[in-house]
Each structure stands twice: as structure tokens, then as C-alpha cells.
């Protein structure tokens, strides 16, 4: 074994200097023979095990489904290298932004026609409408299909709210109520901050703040995360930022830079009384029962209920060996696999609405009724705002956010600099055409 490897490597390297190729073991694929469809997820080991079990139920004489492992801690790096090497699996988990960028580069297969004309139940009309809309590119292509919806809200410790004598958050509560609760909860019972709000302070923060301005009847931060024509910070938006910056200054809300990677465990241990987070944390609470009583409330509002829109999905590279086979497996993933996975691990409501029942059933059975209510409310919220730009220059916006927006929140730059920040983003939008 070892000798063989040395031999091969030396031979290859020798040839290399003569710029000859030393081909690896590429597996070719035929279009009519048996096909292997590969699937790559970013899920945890437990969820992957459940997916494997469900995939075993996929029966087709000519199609074998194989899930390829990837370390979830390095999914981004992995995806980048697979893309460069043109070895992307037939079906890989992807964010809305990845789907938009990859499709714009012509890297993905276009499913738009198949899903619009879909036969049976598996058709566009059975998906959450906003998700379908957001997964389309400017020219109507779909490089992947949304699979799971991510909704956001406020996780709160019932115990901490009781101890502080404040009413628990519920649908319709206001931003002012949230900040006032945070200030009462801070520095109590081993908690440092009253509210940890990663979504409001991270690189995506400027987009989340649209919830405030839109709810108050103002304009969102950007008109469209996929095809923006402008960014803006109107009076209502500035008001929202001012309130948050004040709350951070007073020490009741965790500042930008707070490491959110362990926040779920700290919340369970009672050290974080209130946190902004996704519904997917519910699955973790199923396995590690928190010591505290907790609940999940929708985002606060000013006038109208407004929430974040986000979804993840499954993409397919243009060079997939057999489109029909891949689509069959994709359909199976979206329709059947969730029914098997979600009862054990209720991470998210499927974008394919007929599959949502199993998600809500699982949560109801586990007694997580506030999660059911909030997720349902979020999915039907009349006003949603996108979580981040999905454009190819989005990473430059993230840099601008770090340079301007976060210092504004931490009080290191004046609120008036918001307009400079917005101006720079508008320059980017213009130069990108």
C-alpha cells in the first residue's frame, strides 16, 4: 500500500515537470445505466443519521443515493474547494445567497421549468410563496429549490421574567418593551446582558433593523436583497438604530463582537435570559433539556407585525450526471425525507407545505407550543424583510458593515454616519450595475 503510493506520487511528480497529466480516478457516468446521486448536507451527525435512514427508503432500480460526509465546521471552505474543482455533489445544502450567486455564474442547473410544470403535488404552488419568489434569479432561473424555512424570534427564559416581575414577551409586544425588559434582566442571576441579539449586531444587522422601520411604516434598509436598486436609512430606521445603540451603551444588550457560538448552552443554563435566535434551536432543546422554563416569541413590532425572511435549500451543479435522476432524489428529499427526520429532530418547517405537518406535530408533541405559534405567525407575517444581500458583491457590504454599522452600534461612530454607510453601499450597487 505504502510503496504503491510512493511509486505513484513519484511518477506523477516526474511527469508533472514535463507538464504531462497524471489523471486521478475520475468516475465517469453514463446517462442510461445505473446512476449514483450524491447528497451533501451541513447537518449534525444525529440529523445526518436520520437522513440516511430516510434515504434508505428511496427505491429506484437505476438510482443509488449516496450521502457524502463533510465536517460541518468547515462547510464553507469545503464548498469553495468543491466549486473550484468542479466536483460539487449532485445535491448540496445551500443558502439562498449561495443559490443566487452560483446561478448568476451559470454554475447550477435550472429547475424553474420542472417545478412550475410539476406533476402531482410536487409543484411550485405547494411551496411557501415568498421562498419560491426569492429563489428565482432576475431572469427567472432556479439553481436549487428551497427546502427549509428559517424563522426568527426571541427565545426567553420564563423563570428570569418571573423573577424580575415583568410580563412575558408575546405576539404584538413592542421594541420598547423588549429593551426595557432587557435592562431589567441585565446583571441578574448570573446573567451579564439582558438580551443577546446576534441578528441585530452581526454582519446581517442592517437588514434585521428593517423590521423596525418597516413595522413603523418606514422604508426597509434595501428594496430587494436579490436585485437591489438602493439602500436607505430613513427617519424610522435611524430611530431603530438609535434605540439599539442606546440599549447597547447601557449594557443591557450584548455589543457587536459577542460570540454567539455557545449562546444556546448559556441560555439553557440560565445565563442568558433573552436571545434573538432561529427556530432551529428547538431541536437542540429537545436533546439537552434546559434547566429553565423557556418560550419563543415573535420579534417585537412598532405598529405592524414584521419578521425576517430566510430559507435554505438544496442546489444542483450544472454538470450533474443525470438531471432526471437528481430531480427524483430532490423530490424525495423535499417530500418524504422531512417526514422521517423532523419528528426526531424538529429543526425547521419545510418549504414544501404538505411536509410541514410532521414538523408542527413533533413540536406539539414535545410541548413546545410557543415555538409552534411563533413559527406559524412568522410564516404568515404580512411583512418580511430579507436577511442579507445575495449578490456577488455581498461580501463587500459585510466589510462596510464591519467598518461603519457595527461601530455606530457600539457608540464608536455617531449615528449620523449611517448616511455615509448607506451612501457607500449605494455606490457599490451602482458600480455593480
Amino acid at each position, binding site marked *: 500500500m505504502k510503496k504503491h503510493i510512493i511509486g505513484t506520487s513519484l511518477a506523477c*511528480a516526474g511527469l*508533472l*515537470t514535463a507538464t504531462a497529466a497524471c489523471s486521478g480516478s475520475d468516475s465517469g457516468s453514463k446517462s442510461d445505466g445505473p446512476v449514483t446521486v450524491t447528497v451533501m448536507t451541513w447537518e449534525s451527525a444525529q440529523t445526518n443519521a436520520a437522513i440516511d435512514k430516510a434515504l434508505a427508503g428511496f427505491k429506484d432500480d437505476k438510482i443509488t443515493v449516496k450521502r457524502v460526509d463533510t465536517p460541518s465546521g468547515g*462547510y*464553507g*471552505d469545503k*464548498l*469553495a*474547494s468543491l*466549486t*473550484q474543482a468542479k466536483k460539487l455533489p449532485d445535491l448540496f445544502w*445551500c*443558502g439562498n*445567497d*449561495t443559490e443566487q*450567486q*452560483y446561478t448568476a*455564474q451559470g*454554475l447550477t442547473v435550472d429547475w424553474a421549468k420542472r417545478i412550475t410544470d410539476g406533476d402531482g403535488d410536487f409543484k411550485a404552488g405547494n411551496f411557501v410563496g415568498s421562498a419560491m419568489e426569492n429563489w428565482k434569479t432576475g431572469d427567472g432561473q432556479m439553481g436549487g429549490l428551497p427546502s427549509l424555512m428559517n424563522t426568527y424570534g426571541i427565545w426567553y427564559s420564563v423563570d428570569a421574567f418571573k423573577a424580575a416581575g415583568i410580563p412575558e414577551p408575546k405576539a404584538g409586544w413592542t421594541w420598547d418593551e423588549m429593551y426595557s425588559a432587557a435592562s431589567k434582566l441585565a446583571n441578574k442571576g448570573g446573567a*451579564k446582558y439582558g438580551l443577546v441579539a446576534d441578528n441585530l449586531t452581526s454582519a446581517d444587522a442592517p437588514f434585521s433593523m428593517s423590521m423596525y422601520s418597516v413595522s413603523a411604516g418606514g422604508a426597509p434598509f434595501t428594496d430587494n436583497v436579490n436585485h437591489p436598486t438602493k439602500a436607505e436609512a430613513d427617519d424610522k430606521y435611524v430611530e431603530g438604530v438609535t434605540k439599539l445603540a442606546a440599549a447597547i451603551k447601557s449594557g443591557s444588550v450584548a*455589543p*457587536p*463582537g*459577542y*460570540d454567539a457560538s*455557545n449562546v444556546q448552552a*448559556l441560555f439553557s443554563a440560565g*445565563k442568558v435570559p433573552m436571545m434573538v435566535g432561529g427556530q432551529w434551536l428547538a431541536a437542540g432543546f429537545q436533546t439537552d433539556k434546559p434547566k429553565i422554563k423557556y418560550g419563543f416569541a415573535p420579534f417585537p413590532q412598532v405598529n405592524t407585525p414584521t419578521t425576517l425572511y430566510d430559507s435554505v435549500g438544496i442546489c444542483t451543479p450544472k454538470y450533474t450526471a443525470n438531471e432526471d435522476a437528481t430531480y427524483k432524489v430532490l423530490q424525495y428529499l423535499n417530500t418524504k425525507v422531512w417526514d422521517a427526520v423532523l419528528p426526531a429532530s424538529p429543526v425547521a418547517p419545510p418549504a414544501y407545505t404538505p411536509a410541514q405537518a410532521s414538523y408542527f406535530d413533533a413540536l406539539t408533541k414535545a410541548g413546545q407550543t410557543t415555538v409552534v405559534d411563533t413559527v406559524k405567525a412568522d410564516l404568515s407575517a404580512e411583512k418580511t424583510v430579507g436577511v442579507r444581500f445575495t449578490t*456577488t458583491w*455581498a*461580501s*463587500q457590504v459585510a*466589510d*462596510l458593515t*464591519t*467598518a*461603519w454599522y*457595527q*461601530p455606530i452600534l*457600539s457608540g464608536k461612530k455617531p449615528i449620523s454616519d449611517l448616511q455615509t454607510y448607506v451612501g*457607500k453601499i449605494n455606490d457599490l450597487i451602482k458600480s455593480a450595475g
Partner: protein
Amino acid sequence: MNRSRVGMSRSAGSDTRAAYLFILPPIIGFSVFVAYPLVRSFYLALTKYNGLTDPVFVGLDNFRRLFTVDPAFWPSLKATGYLVVLYVPLSLGLGLALAMFCNQRFAGVRIVRTLAYLPVVLPAIATITLWKFILNPQVGLANTILAKLHLPTSSWLQSPSMSMPSIVIVMLWGVGGTMIIFLAALQAVPTELYEAAKVDGAGPYSVFFRITLPMISPIMLLQVILQTTAALQTFNQPKILTGGGPGFSTNVLMLSIYNNGFSNLGRIPQLGYASAQVWVLFILIIAVIALTAKFSSLWTYSDNTPD
């Protein structure tokens, strides 16, 4: 480096053939793994390239964007400089102190030396992740111990002012690497010099500044160069510990290059732009080495110069 070349080889022809046979692998390696990427990345620095479609030549546009538009570039240069200024003197100072400490004769000195070197042996990924948890403000070991001793605690990696010092603390846990080199240098100082100084009645401070430091100055020079170039290329610690944050406080050049060129979850890479950054880093390193070498004659001691 005074070497004797008594009876250097007679048969030059056969030597040349044998020598080139012996160094053929690194010559091939140098051409393929060093020269080629260097030339290629210089070309890429002048292009717009995403690794998927062919590079498009754009001249100095990447550099223009770097120096005038990119909000992350100057902060990342600043972070890199801060890291070097903080880490290199501390690493050299602590390393030398530790080496002098371990150069004494006490029972158990070998254990101290071995343990001081131990962190260097462990996988970087493993120790850095361990330290990330140690520095966790709520449940980490660092704050637990500090609180028990009634000392002020810190939010370490999560505080914009403490994040870089925290990274340097994690790097200094591996100071055994610097120590071991100084130890070798200290052991090479002729003992007669110390004996003579003793006879002259010199105190420990004057022994240190008049004998020890001058005698190890060539090693010190080498250490300054190596540690500085390595510090300029620090990557693992900020990548794992902070991801460059909070803000740009630990977004060193290497991390910025990596993010633009390779990572950035599901985003189209900007390989040409990253290559331009690589060249900025490269020129920085060359400048540091040139400057250090130029001024080294001011403070290094040498009895004779190598060829």
C-alpha cells in the same frame, strides 16, 4: 559560521554530477511549488478571476481598490502590525527569560524545560480550540480562576480592545519554541567568559548585558527575522479564535486573503483580488527582512562574518 574546508573534494566533475542528483528533488520542488505559484499569483494579481471562468486582465485595478476603496484593507494592515508589535517582543523576551531560567542547574529543571516545550508539540488546531473555550467569558477556565482569586475578569476574545492581546496570549503559550532556540544559544556561550566576569566582580546585570546578550545576538537576529515573518503570516489563531472580529480588530492580512480567495461560505471567490493582497504581504515581509538585516550591524556581535 566559521567553517573549515580542509581537503574539500578533489574531483569537481563527479561532485557536480552527484550534487545535482542529490538536490534534484528540491530543485523540481522549488520550480513547481515556489517559482511557478509566485509568477502565477503575480499575474493573477493583475486580473479579475473567480477560478471558474478565465482571468480577465484589469491592470492595477485590484491594487487601486485595495488602497482606496476597500474598508477592510487598512484595518487589516493595522491589525497585522499590532500583532507583530505585540507578539514579537513578548515572545523573544519571555523566550529568553525562560531559557535563562532553564539554563540553571536545579533538580527538576528538565521537567520544567519539557513541560514548557510541551504545547509546541500539540496540534495547533487542538490547542487553539481548547484556548477558545478557556477564554470563554462565562464558563471558561481563565475567568473562573481569575474570579476565584478575586482578580478582574475580561471578555477576552469578544472585546475589541482585548481580542488581539488574547490572541497573543494564546500564541505565547507556545513560547517554548522560542525558548529552546535561546537555550541552545545560551549553552554555546563559552563558560570562560562568565568565569572571567566573575573574577572581575561583575554583577548579574552587567554579565547579562555585557556577555550574554552580545554573545547570543546572532541568534537574536535570526529569531527576530523568523518570528516577525511568521507573525506577519499568523492565520490559525484568528481564524479559529475570532474569525477576524470583533469588528476588524483581529482581521489580519492572511485571514483577509483567505476569506477573499478561498472561503466566505458559498460566495464566489475573488482570486485576483486575493492575489493582489498576497503580493502586498509578500512585499511587507521582504521589507521587514531587509530592514532588520540592514540595521542588525548596529546591535549584533560577530567575531567574523560568514561567506
